[in-house]
């Protein structure tokens, strides 16, 4: 039973990490209506940025934040220079993000090499914490705390600020938002930066758990995809729930049914996509 | 026996009742005009008749046969043809090809993956004839994208007529046409034989008035007035609906 508890704790921690990754994806998807296929590579890019910053002497948390800003800036460039040239053409935008993901992944390979690099757990969070007589890795608990903090912050942003209101308007009723005078294109840039930054931050946070290696992007992107499709796009609560569901499916799936681990993950996603074809992608048919 | 009959038709989108308890009985060979202000639910009614929309309640009958449950793609085979408010033809194809596509839709040949379409002489001659009927055969080889709007409207009507329909539904056929083009279309419609029952939607009453024998007026999804042309024109409510806009 200890193992199950440990698995459960790891699943929750992984769910927290996935939330940080997927929240950005969900925002971009909800507002811009495109599944951002660069999201996995942005996660990886952030992790690599973190590696370099730490190697330069920065400590963990500042490195994570700076890396997040770096990835956010990069995301902004992508949105303004590339995606903006294809307004309204969602399919083309998705293809661009796909091509970009290849470019980013290969660039990372070029710069940081092919060997996996681990990010050391910050000193203060090493070791185990004992809860009810059971030991859990302290860092994983920290990840959960960070994820919860970000969830709260995002909720605050969306619910309490003007920017948040504009984002929600853009997600729920894009035509109306434009008519009312919301500069939707500027909103796109802001949200894309925000989503990219979150992904980059998540990459560094995930470093001590997953380490950083070529192919990390291809491992993480499908997970973000599943979370958003199961949890619903543009819905914060959906991302939270989806992240934890996927966290559990992934960890328990790997442990109990290693041969069908991916099937366990993608089958629910397929089922949802097939049963609700209009609700998720594209606007409702005329 | 009525050609087209609709009973108790209801359709709502969310909370909005777009079609409200509509009854319609159209006799074979009749020329019926359906008018009403924007948003009255005219096109929705057409969509319900052709099956593109499923009614919440009510029935649709074609020559006494209940077709409410018949999928829309089968209704073309049963003799319903329609045109659209916004022309949705195939801009990259020639006029001839456009008509061929509409003929093919009713022919077994549409499932043939090996024969060359160019070699189906019967089909192609038929298409030429359909174009000639609307006076456009001389442009048969021209790409649709390179024709004038009025010509496209006539191609659309040619395609609908090529289907040899029993009931022809025309959705605002005069929209966007110049005065000359309107005259052309009017002549075209007048020449259609009585085997074809025609129901037309128009927004602008003046334009379609001489076409109509009976008129149905829709307002907020309901039938508010119905009768012969003279009756409807004289009815005070008609003026109210239109002047009230």
């Amino acid at each position, binding site marked *: 039973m200890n193992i199950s508890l440990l698995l459960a704790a790891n699943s929750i921690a992984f769910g927290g990490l996935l939330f940080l990754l997927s929240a950005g994806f969900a925002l971009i998807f909800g507002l811009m209506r495109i599944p951002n296929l660069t999201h996995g590579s942005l996660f990886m890019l952030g992790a690599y940025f973190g590696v370099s910053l730490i190697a330069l002497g920065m400590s963990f948390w500042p490195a994570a934040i700076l890396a997040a800003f770096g990835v956010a800036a990069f995301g902004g460039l992508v949105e303004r220079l590339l995606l903006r040239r294809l307004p309204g053409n969602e399919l083309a935008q998705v*293809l661009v993000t796909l091509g970009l993901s290849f470019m980013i992944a290969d660039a990372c390979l070029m710069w940081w090499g092919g060997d996996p690099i681990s990010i050391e757990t910050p000193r203060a969070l090493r070791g185990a914490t004992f809860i009810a007589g059971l030991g859990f890795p302290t860092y994983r608990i920290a990840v959960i705390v960070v994820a919860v903090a970000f969830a709260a912050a995002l909720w605050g942003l969306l619910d309490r600020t003007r920017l948040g209101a504009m984002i929600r308007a853009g997600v729920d009723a894009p035509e109306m938002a434009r008519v009312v005078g919301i500069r939707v294109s500027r909103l796109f840039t802001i949200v894309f930066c925000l989503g990219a930054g979150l992904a980059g931050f998540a990459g560094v946070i995930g470093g001590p758990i997953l380490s950083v290696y070529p192919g990390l992007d291809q491992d993480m992107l499908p997970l973000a995809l599943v979370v958003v499709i199961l949890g619903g796009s543009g819905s914060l609560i959906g991302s939270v729930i989806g992240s934890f569901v996927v966290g559990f499916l992934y960890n328990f799936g790997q442990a109990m049914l290693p041969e069908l681990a991916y099937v366990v993950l*993608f089958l629910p996603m397929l089922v949802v996509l097939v049963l609700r074809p209009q609700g998720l992608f594209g606007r409702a048919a005329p | 026996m009525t050609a087209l009959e609709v009973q108790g038709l209801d359709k709502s989108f969310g909370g909005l009742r777009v079609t409200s308890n509509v009854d319609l009985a159209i006799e074979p060979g009749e020329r019926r005009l359906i008018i009403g202000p924007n948003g009255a639910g005219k096109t929705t009614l057409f969509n319900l008749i052709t099956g593109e929309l499923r009614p919440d309640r009510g029935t649709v009958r074609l020559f006494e046969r209940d077709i409410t449950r018949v999928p829309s*793609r089968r209704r073309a085979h049963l003799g319903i043809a329609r045109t659209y408010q916004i022309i949705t033809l195939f801009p990259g194809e020639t006029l001839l090809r456009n008509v061929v596509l509409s003929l093919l*839709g009713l022919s077994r040949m549409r499932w043939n993956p090996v024969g060359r*379409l160019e070699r189906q002489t019967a089909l192609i001659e038929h298409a030429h004839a359909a174009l000639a009927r609307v006076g456009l055969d001389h442009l048969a080889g021209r790409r649709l994208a390179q024709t004038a709007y009025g010509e496209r409207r006539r191609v659309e009507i040619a395609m609908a007529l090529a289907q040899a329909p029993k009931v022809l539904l025309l959705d605002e056929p005069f929209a966007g046409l110049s005065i000359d083009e309107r005259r052309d279309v009017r002549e075209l419609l007048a020449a259609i034989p009585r085997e074809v029952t025609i129901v037309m939607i128009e927004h602008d009453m003046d334009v379609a008035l001489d076409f109509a024998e009976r008129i149905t007026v829709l307002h907020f999804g309901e039938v508010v007035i119905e009768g012969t042309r003279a009756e409807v024109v004289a009815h005070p409510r008609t003026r109210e609906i239109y002047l009230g806009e």
Partner: protein
Amino acid sequence: MKRLALAAALVLLATVPFWIGNSYYTNIAAQILLYAVFALGLNVLVGYAGLVSLGHAGLFGIAAYAGALFINAGAGHLLAILGALGVTLVASAAFAVLALRGTGLGFVMITVALGQIVWGVAYRWISITNGDNGVSVATRPAPFGLSLATAPGFYWATLIVFLVTLGAIAVFAASPFGTGLRGTRDQPRRMNALGYNVWLIRFLSFLFSGLWSGVAGMLFLYYNQFVSPQVVALTSSAEVLLMVISGGTGTLLGPIAGAALVVIMKNVASAYIERWNFVLGAIFVAIVIFMPEGLVPGSVRFWRWTRAWLRPRASRPVPVIAPAPQPKKRA
């Protein structure tokens, strides 16, 4: 004129092993042809049906894996090929039924999910697929006793398959069914109103497309005599989509040109440029943004533009408000 060009091309293709240099280049030519089969098959969906699939590598891989497993279980080559194609058709049917629940982007994402499931099975179901280690096949077939073990031999076999594919798809495109399919791409609602069964047309086209992906998969299996999960990864689906898009979706030549471009870049360029994926991604992005209709039509457009620009001033047509498409004058 066109016939002459075609005949010349055919002669060129048939004699490739003699003029292309050495067996390395012959092999590349064979690769181009096999990927051209794959791209032509995908183009049936992307170009003619207007349905973009990012999961077609799944069907390609299913054929290769099925073929490999049949062969290693003792089946003869003919039986293995037929079996693999049969399995691919069944898989295509399953893919189609699920993917056609969505349209546009929804269709794409369902194909992504399906491709990922296939990849997950290939990668993880080690007892069947050997996971990352892949499955090897000891021999190539020897139809009528002719060996395909040599580069020229395999090339000619691939050429024959390619020509059959090209012929089949050309016939399909010119047929009433093919024309109807293109109609559903442009105006699905109108086609429905005209009496066509749009879903069934798309479903059957998906099967047709899957069949050629399966053929290509078997060619791939025999070429490499090996198949691994990389074959069904998302990058592989993206690569073949790039082939179709870069060449141009509206034509028969487009996917072939696209396949040539991608294979040449991948093999030859990677001797000079270290990072192939980067270039692949960059080309993808550039084409989607600047030449969305693809290289073949885009080049034609570019060529016409250059010619018009080079004409002496006096005879250059003065554009009125917006240049309207000029009606083509056929010689």
